[in-house]
């Protein structure tokens, strides 16, 4: 792929940029349309190791950025739970991480974007130039143009190690206290893992960490560890095995609780080491439910946890995090002040979908939202209600671009 031109976009409509395909839902799919393989655009244009700015093409992965920048003492300002995503995809979903309470989303750290639009030429946008298009593109699900390149402001580090602490908690109130602004100030990275089958008790492990003050600046190894070689039988994960896993995980976490030192790779990206981890869910696969509700609606949040516990459907890695107040420039960004829950489910057709609909009602009533990057099924009404700037966003969509997600959630619009 030499050059992305407006003509190329128009000729291939409906088109969607495709990076590493890590979105769980259909926001990276384009049924009946064309996908543009963005991994071909993987050149770095410049990396200034003095002021920590990197400019690269959109298909460069976050892992590749770390390989280049960590030895020079620079880290991603914000990182999601996998480094196997492209920079373009990270921007299009305005990804967040364990430091949302201090750094906001990745969109808060983007200097300039270059977009190719079918309606014209190349557009450079930033907070100063074409600010509306910039705001529409951050979290814009790839619909406002093809992101060709972007500049990212990195974070200075003095070590590749993370000083981390594991704190077990037994009640929801404990989690809230651990996530408080007061506590959060001294911990850059915070996240809670909860046993989603524990119900009212909400037992879990609170992980928090900071970059170590000094140490080696060794990047991660590119070798993958384990691989899941084939789909495991669909029934591998059932309420019984999940319960057993969660109990063991919790007990192990309790035993290991306290302060330890960890390389950034296992701290941020534990699943990157298990190739094709999704295969443990069998042929039917998995889906995820990630919602956010305002903190004032903590009761609703607890209600969601209890409902999931009752059904016994949830699986491991129930993740909760308190988002902070830093506002992203993105008009369609998912993170907003409040509590977010991300929970994996082995996909069981109607059973799963029915549960999700129930959860939707609670999220909606609490004034919350779902994360498009994780969603394969929310209704157009749900999407409309939780993204108040939707109509403003619509004006910036490139007519040549679309996605399965977008057609699904705008089905009955206008």
């Amino acid at each position, binding site marked *: *792929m*030499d050059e992305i031109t407006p003509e190329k976009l128009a000729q291939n409509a409906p088109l969607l940029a495709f990076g590493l395909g890590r979105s769980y839902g259909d926001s990276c799919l384009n049924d009946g349309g064309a996908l543009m393989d963005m991994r071909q655009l993987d050149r770095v*244009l*410049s*990396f200034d190791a003095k002021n920590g700015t990197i400019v*690269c093409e959109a298909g460069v992965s976050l892992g590749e950025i770390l390989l*280049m920048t960590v030895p020079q003492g620079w880290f991603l300002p914000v990182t999601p739970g996998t480094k196997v995503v492209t920079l373009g995809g990270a921007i299009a979903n305005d990804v967040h991480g364990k430091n949302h309470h201090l750094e906001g989303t990745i969109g808060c750290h983007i200097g300039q974007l270059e977009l190719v639009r079918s309606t014209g030429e190349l557009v450079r946008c930033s907070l100063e130039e074409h600010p509306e298009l910039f705001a529409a593109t951050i979290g814009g699900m790839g619909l406002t143009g093809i992101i060709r390149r972007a500049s990212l402001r990195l974070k200075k580090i003095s070590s590749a190690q993370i000083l981390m602490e594991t704190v077990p908690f037994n009640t929801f109130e404990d989690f809230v206290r651990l996530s408080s602004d007061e506590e959060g100030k001294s911990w850059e990275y915070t996240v809670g893992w909860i046993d989603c089958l524990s119900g009212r008790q909400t037992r879990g492990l609170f992980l928090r960490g900071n970059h170590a003050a000094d140490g080696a600046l060794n990047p991660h190894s590119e070798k993958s560890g384990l691989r899941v070689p084939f789909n495991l039988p669909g029934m591998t994960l059932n309420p019984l095995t999940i319960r057993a896993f969660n109990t063991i995980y919790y007990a192990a976490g309790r035993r290991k609780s306290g302060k330890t030192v960890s390389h950034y790779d296992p701290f941020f990206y534990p699943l990157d080491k298990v190739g094709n981890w999704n295969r443990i869910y069998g042929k039917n696969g998995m889906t995820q439910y990630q919602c956010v509700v305002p903190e004032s609606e903590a009761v609703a949040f607890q209600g969601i946890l209890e409902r999931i516990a009752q059904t016994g459907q949830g699986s491991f890695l129930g993740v909760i995090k308190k988002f902070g107040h830093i506002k992203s420039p993105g008009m369609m960004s998912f993170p907003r002040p409040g509590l977010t829950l991300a929970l994996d489910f082995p996909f069981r057709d109607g059973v799963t979908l029915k549960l999700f609909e129930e959860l939707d009602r609670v999220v909606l009533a609490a004034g919350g939202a779902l994360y498009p990057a994780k969603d394969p099924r929310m209704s157009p009404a749900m999407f409309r209600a939780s993204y108040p700037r939707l109509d403003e966003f619509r004006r910036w969509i490139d007519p040549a671009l679309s996605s399965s997600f977008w057609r699904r959630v705008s089905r009955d619009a206008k």
Partner: protein
Amino acid sequence: MTGTLVIIGATSKIASEVGRVAARKKRKLVLVGRNKDRLDAVAGDLSARGAQQVSVIVGAVEVVGQHADLWQKIEEAAGEISEVLIAYGSLSNQALSETDTGYMLHEVEVNFNSPASLMNYAAAYFENRAKKAGGARQSGVLAVITSVAGDRARRSNFTYGAAKGALALFAQGMRARLSSSGIRVLTIKPGPVATPMTAAMPGADRMASPQMVAETIYRAMTSGRAEVIYVPGYWRLIMRVIREIPESIGKKLKF
């Protein structure tokens, strides 16, 4: 001390990935190619990824008449050369080469005459250096990318295959010529690799990744004593079987 790695045809996907492996090792690089903008983009990428020094030489690598001049520029930019990698090629359109003889000869020129010519210049450089060193131990690698398609002519791509096969034979002769100078000649035979060159071929999604192929090539160039490598390695076995197909059957095969 490690000298410069010279990559000719540096903007090809495999070559630029080899450049990235070398950049991670903080090597000095000279990139040679036809298109200045694309070369500059690759050079910027390799600098950002850690290369100690990157020089760019723009020249029509397929025009044999310009090679004397081109090679001189390479020597000037490179200083001490450790390895030369000749990485360009053109996946010929077989049907067109059967109706358009001019096109067929041009493809042979790009895939055989031109790389063979550059190998001659590189060989002379390495020999002169050995002579100047007066018997002191020399090292250096002259590597060339041919193709598994050169192991046997096939109905569907024998213009390409014949030129690549001739190049492999030429490299074999070069190996004999340079062994007394302490220079290793490395013949690289990739199977189909997922690059822009093969994007239109069926099964592109099952092909070897250019990153993996580049890692293997760089390792073979900088360590060990390999002389002919297949990447991925299983192609050695596949091609052995294909070479053994008797002509009476082979001529009837359509692949």
